[in-house]
Every structure is written in structure tokens, then in C-alpha cells.
């Protein structure tokens, strides 16, 4: 709880993007209920790059799905940009996702039948954005992510790293309040992975885009400004990068992970 308080005191100047309070999620029918999230409190401020880490089964992806409105929490409140998503209807949630959130998936989830540009422009297709505005937005994002030359290529014609950049561009096209990334580097080789993470960190710093990334890779999370560790459905601890170098932060993450992992093996 001490870390939680520290977060609030440190970041009050920045606006809150996401505020989760006592989020619980259970699966299964009566008699065989398994609680995956056991009351999570989390606050993400504008411009943060938050990494969520934890062992398999710690509830990382469940937490992400619940926060990203893809799944509903069993209990608790979640406010994104001040809107309570737990009270929204399905159609409202869809519109909310389309307008306020961005997604980057491990498997890219690009539509095979669409070109890179068509994939990227998909989220704005039902919105009110004018064609010129969308085009300008596409050009600027494609430039940042260095995929301008790929606009007319199909997903099967480009590399994994390029696919993930496309996926990232799609997540950013409608200037979301919050971008969720689920193991974005999981399917990439180390070079493409660090290049993508570097770009994400740049976008985060320069464009002020708030990102929440789930990963099990300590190297990936060392690009974050803060890392939250989950264990058995609870927040175990948090680390801030602060002014540390990425290497030093990486070491710190490794240390926490060692404790986390060792603990779980020894304790049980």
C-alpha cells in the first residue's frame, strides 16, 4: 500500500487517465469459482508508460482485458478519462474502445485482406474524422513508425517487426487516451523487438501517449517508466524508472522478478 500512496503523491500534477479500484475477476460457475484478480487498485496518469509483469497465471492478460473493456470485471470500478466503464452497455463499450483506446496485440491481428494503410485507417472508418484529417494523421503516424513505404503492401509481404509497427500505427490513428499492448514483442526477434520498444518509448515521450503494456520480458519492461508486478491476482510491487538508466532499471526488474519467482517456488 505504501507504493500506492507514493504514486498518488508523485503524480498529482498529471491528469489521471485510468483509475481502477478493487477490481476482482472470477471465472467458472458456482462450486468451481476461480478468482484470478483479487482486488487490484491501479492508477495510470497521463503520459505514463506502464509495464505489467508477472509469472504465467498471475492475471496479467485478465487485468489487461478487464481494463481494456474487452472483458467485464466481477467487482470493482474502473474509470478511464473519468468515465465509469463498468456501468456502460456493450454498444457504448464498443464505441468507447473505438474512440478512446488503442490496441497492440502479440499476433499483430492485422486483417490479411487489407493493405497496411487500409489496416491502419480501419479504426477511423466509422468515426467522424474527415478523410483529409485521417489522411494527414496517417501520414504523420506512418512517418513516426517508419512504415510510409509499406502503405500499399499486404501483411503477408512484410516482416513481423513491420507488422507490429503497422499494428501500433493502427492503435495510434485515432489519438487514443490510452494504448494497451499485450506482449507486443512476443513474436518478434530481439532486434525488431528493441527497435519497436524504442519507438514506443519515443512516441510515449514525444507525443505524450499513455501506454499500458503487458509483458513477461524484463528487457521489454525496462523501456517503461513504471513496472507493476502482479502475483496471484494481486499487485505485488511497483518499480519506477525515475532518472535511472535503462540498464540499471533492467537490473532492478530482474531482481524483483527473482524474488517473485523464487518466492513462488519456495513457498508452495
Amino acid at each position, binding site marked *: 500500500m505504501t507504493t500506492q500512496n507514493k504514486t498518488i503523491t508523485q503524480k498529482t500534477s498529471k491528469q489521471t487517465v485510468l483509475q481502477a479500484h478493487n477490481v476482482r475477476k472470477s471465472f467458472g460457475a458456482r462450486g468451481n469459482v476461480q478468482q484470478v484478480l483479487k482486488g487490484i487498485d491501479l492508477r495510470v496518469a497521463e503520459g505514463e508508460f506502464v509495464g505489467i509483469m508477472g509469472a504465467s497465471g498471475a492475471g496479467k492478460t485478465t487485468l489487461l482485458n478487464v481494463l481494456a473493456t474487452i472483458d467485464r470485471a466481477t467487482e470493482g470500478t474502473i474509470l478511464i478519462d473519468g468515465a465509469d466503464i463498468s456501468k456502460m452497455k456493450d*454498444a457504448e463499450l*464498443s464505441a468507447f474502445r473505438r474512440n478512446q483506446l488503442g*490496441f497492440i496485440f502479440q499476433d499483430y491481428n492485422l*486483417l490479411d*485482406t487489407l493493405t497496411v494503410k*487500409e489496416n491502419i485507417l*480501419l479504426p477511423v*472508418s*466509422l468515426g467522424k474524422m474527415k478523410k483529409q484529417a485521417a489522411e494527414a494523421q496517417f501520414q504523420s503516424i506512418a512517418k513516426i513508425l517508419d512504415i510510409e513505404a509499406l502503405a500499399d503492401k499486404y501483411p503477408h509481404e512484410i516482416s513481423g517487426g513491420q507488422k507490429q509497427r503497422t499494428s501500433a500505427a493502427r492503435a495510434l490513428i485515432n489519438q487514443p487516451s490510452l494504448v494497451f499492448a499485450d506482449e507486443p514483442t512476443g513474436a518478434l526477434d530481439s532486434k525488431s523487438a528493441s527497435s519497436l520498444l524504442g519507438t514506443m518509448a519515443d512516441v510515449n515521450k514525444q507525443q505524450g501517449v499513455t501506454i499500458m503494456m503487458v509483458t513477461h520480458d524484463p528487457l521489454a519492461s525496462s523501456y517503461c517508466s513504471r513496472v507493476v508486478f502482479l502475483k496471484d491476482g494481486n499487485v505485488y510491487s511497483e518499480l519506477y524508472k525515475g532518472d535511472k538508466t535503462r540498464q540499471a532499471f533492467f537490473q532492478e526488474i530482474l531482481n524483483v522478478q527473482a524474488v517473485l519467482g523464487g518466492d513462488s517456488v519456495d513457498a508452495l
Partner: protein
Amino acid sequence: MCRLCSGVTALTLFDLVKRSMRKNIKHYYLYFFALILSVVLYFVFATLQHDAAVAEQGTGTMGTAFQVAGILLIVIAGIFIVYANAIFLKRRSREIGLYQLIGLTKRAVARLLILENMLLGIMALIVGIAVGMLVSRVFLLLLMKLIGYEAFIEVSFSTAAVIQTFFVFLAIFVLTTIQMVFTVYRNSLLSLFNSEKQGQHPRKPKTAVSAILALLGIGLIAFGYWLSGRMLNAMIFFNMLAVLATVILGTYLIFRVTISWLLYRIRRNKNGHLGLENSLSLAPLMHRMKSNANSLTIITVLSAMTLTMTAAAYSMYYSTERETQAIMPFDFMFENEAGLADEISEELDVNGISYQREAVETFVVPAEFEEKPAPFLEQATDIAVLSSEQLQQAGLDVDVPANGEASFHDVSVSTLFNSVDLPFDLTFQDEVPTTLSIMEIAPYNVLNWSFFTSQIVVNEETYQSLKAQLASETGDAALQQMDGFHIAEEDMAAASAIYQQDKYKTSSLHVDYYSSYEESVQSNGLLIFIAGFLGLVFLISTGSILYFKQMTEAEQEKQSYATLRQLGFTVKDIMRGIIRKQAFVFGLPLAIGLAHSIFAIQAASFLFRTDILFPASVAMGVYALIYLVFAVLAVGYYKKTVKATL
């Protein structure tokens, strides 16, 4: 496998079959449905073929018609089942791969599949024959109603039909078994595991070549349509082949090139701003157009064929009464047989049948048309001349032509005059040639003529002057006294029976309105039944194939729908795009098939003397409606799939 444990293996294999069938019922039902449906329809058909009542009614032509239809039915059922099996195998290829992965030999997997296929086949036969027995009565009643048979009908269980059905499906079973063995032996493990992901990637079409081929497709169809309206000349056979070839080739090019080319152009204009609905319709359509071209062409051509067949058959059935009336304006007629006419009048009186006896005078003279009117007609012909006033007296509805003018009546050739410009001249060669202007080609006869002689109607004044000039007391141009009889509707059958007695028979063509109407109803009723039955089978097969194809596509595109929903598109948004795609997939073959059949019917309209717009529209409308059911089913399946993704 060692010899000792082979018995054990067989047992576990059978267990495996049972278990996998129970677990995969969802995958099976499609193939199973295709099997059962084919068995039901074939069995119903075989039962009718062997039914005593049908055999008794039918003469030689009926048997032949049934046999030809039976062969067509086997071909369609075979194609349909093999196609369904192909889809079924593709969906299960991962499972087939898995069996091999866990160590079953290809041989064992093939045996497992054959065993399964056998079980499915036997079950389908039992269920199909049972259902077939239930519904065959309905079909028999329908057939009997159509051919105007009004006795009590009982469907007897036909062993012959069961045996026939069994052997037909045994042959089809062998076919599907070969197909299965082929799948197991030919494919590598890797391709089995990846076959669900197949589907080519769209390539940029070579613009110049595509543009030419795309326009050629449209051009070929347009040419075929154009030619179909001008087929009736000496080269009719060649013309028909040319129309068929150009239209089918054109259809193929439309699906293979034209549509992709058009879609590509639309897409290029969008410059990446495709929008959700196009992303879900235009893009996947382009993606699959290449592999779908063949099946869409076949479906379109089959639909066009079915539509033409059923529309023509229904038109024939529908216009039977009017057609017979056009051939025989009187219920029966005597030529120069006043004695027989008196005799039958008496007999009708005795039997209490009310009738009207009308006398009409005519004579037959050689005449010559201004020029050869149509490719199949001679310039010189024999013509019977009649007076319009006399005919009106006799109760016929004819107009009175002006002096020197005439109307031309001959149902057997009237449609051949369609392309002739009116009026044209008809000249009687005598010492002084007399010329009449033909003002009208009427699609009905004014005499029950037992020889196929054309008739012209002139007014009384012209008639009398022609008679004075051309007719003689004896010889070829002799005057003939015609005695026509009109019978009231309710007495027609009795009067017909009296007329058909041998003593009234004067020529080999001894026909009356009632009996020839009955005969036409019988043959046209059989025709519409067979055409309708085959049409239904074609329709169900093509509709099901399209539906199965869409089911497979829906499965393949699941991930896209999941992604879209995560990105924040609602089921409703996604369904809009999918419905657009379905409208295209189902609508295009239907629209092109309809267009083809409309031109085909128009080209064949010379077979009909009556207006067939109504019956043809009804047949086409019914076809389109049943066809749409499959589109609705496909949309429903997509909706279920999209909903289940998140």
C-alpha cells in the same frame, strides 16, 4: 502393428470413430445433411418411377422422361455430395493430421475415415429412405394433381426403389471413399495443419490485359444475348452452340476477371480509406475471387439452366388450355361429312347433351407470298379462305377485315412470322392474279383443321368474289362444308367420348378439344413435375454449396471478426459489411442467372403462341425466393460466428 494385436486395434479404431463422431457432430452435420437430403430426393424419385399408378398413367414418353431425369439426378447428387465431402475433409484436416501426429499410420487413418463414412452412409440411407417414404406420398399427390388424375392414390412401399437407391448411393460412397483416401495419402502433415489458413493473396492485376479480358467478358455475353434473338435462320444449330459458348465463356470471364478488375479499380480510388463495410465485403471478395470463379460460374450456369427449364415448363403447363383453344376453336368438327354431323347431333340429343352446331364454308387454293416470309416457310402454300361474317355467326371472335385485306391464321407457324413486316401481299395465281394484303398474323386457328393448312379470313364481300373467281365444284379447290360443334363445359367429357367412337372416324387425325386438352395436361403436367423436381434439387444443391462455402469462409475469418470487435466495432457494424458481401455472393449468380434465363426464354418464345410473361415471372420469382433462404441462412451463420468471437 503386430499381427496379434490387430484385433485390438480394430476395436479401438471403432471406438475412436464413435468417439470422434460424437464429439464432432457439428462438423459432420453439414456432410450428413447433404447425404440425407440426396437420399430423400432420390428415393422419392425412384418411388414415383416405380409407382403402379404412375406406370399405369404413363406411356412410353413418361418412362423416358423419368429415366433421363433420374440420370440427371444421380449426377447432381454425386457432385453435391463430393463437394460437401471436400469441404468436410478440409474442415477436419487438422484432425486427420493429429491422428497421424499421435502415431496412427496413414493406412489406419484412411481406415478410420472409411469406417466413419460407411456409418454415416448407412445412417443417411436409413434416415433418408424413412423420410423419403413419408414425403413421397406428397410428391405423388402433387404429380397426380398436375397431370389431372383424380383417382384415389395409395403409395405402396417399393422394394425396387430401395434397391435402386441403395446401389446409386453405394456408387457415390465409393467415390467419396476414394476422395478421402486421396486426402490422407496425398497431403503432408504440414499442409493438413495449415489447410484452414489457405486462400491466396490478392495480386495487383496486370491492368492492360485485365481490362481487355474484363471487357471481353461483358462483350461475349452481350453478343450471346444479341445472337439469341436472331437465331431462327438456316444456321440455327450453329447459332445455338455459339450462344451457349459465348455466354458461358463470358460468364466465366465476368467472375474470373471483370469483377476483380472492377473491384480493384474501386479500391484503388479509395486510396486506403476503405471503410469497415468495404473491408468486410470488397476486400475478402477480391481475396477469394480467383478460387471462387469456377464454382460461381458453374452455379450461375446451373441456375440459368434451371430457371429456363422450370420457367418454360411452367409456361407450357400454364398455357395448356389457351394453346389447345388456339389450335381447336371448335370442340370437334366434321369436314364435308354432313351425314356424320347429323348422326352425332342425334346421339348428343339422346344423351341429353346440349350443343351448338355451326356451319362454315371454305375452299382451299394455292397462293404465293410476296417473298419467302421466314427461313422455314415456303413462298408458295395452300390456303383455306373463310368469311369473317360466317365465323362470327359460328360464335368465333374475329374482326371483319376491310375489302382486299385479310388476317392470317395458323398456330403452327404464326410465331415464325414474328420478324415479318406487316402488311405483306398474298397472291392467288389464276388467269388474273388476285392479291390480298395480310394485315394481321393471328396466333389462333379458325378451323379445327385436320391438315396443317393455313387459313385466311376475309370479309363476306371479298369472300364471295374470291369464291366466284377461284373455287370450283369439284377438285382441289372444291367448296367444303365444315360442321363445327360447341359443347357446354360440363358435358365436354361425355361429348368427347361419343365423338371418339370409331363410326365417326373419318381421318387418321381424329381429335377433339377435350381429349387433346386432357392429353396436353398430362404431358405438360409431367413435364412441370419433372422440371420442378429437378429444379428443386438443383436449387437446393447450388444453394447449399454456396452456404457451405460461406460457412467455411466465416470460420476462416473468425480472427478478423475478433480483432474488429476488440478494436471497438459492434456486431451490428460488422454484420453490415457481411450482409453486403452476402448480397454479392448470392445475388450475383442469381442476377446473372436470371438475365441468362430471361434471354433464353425469349429466344425460345417461338414455341409459345400465348403470352408467357406471367408464368415465367412466377417460376423465376419462386426460384429467387427459395434461393434467398440460403442467403438468409448464411447471414445467420455469420452472425452467430461474429457474436461468438468475443
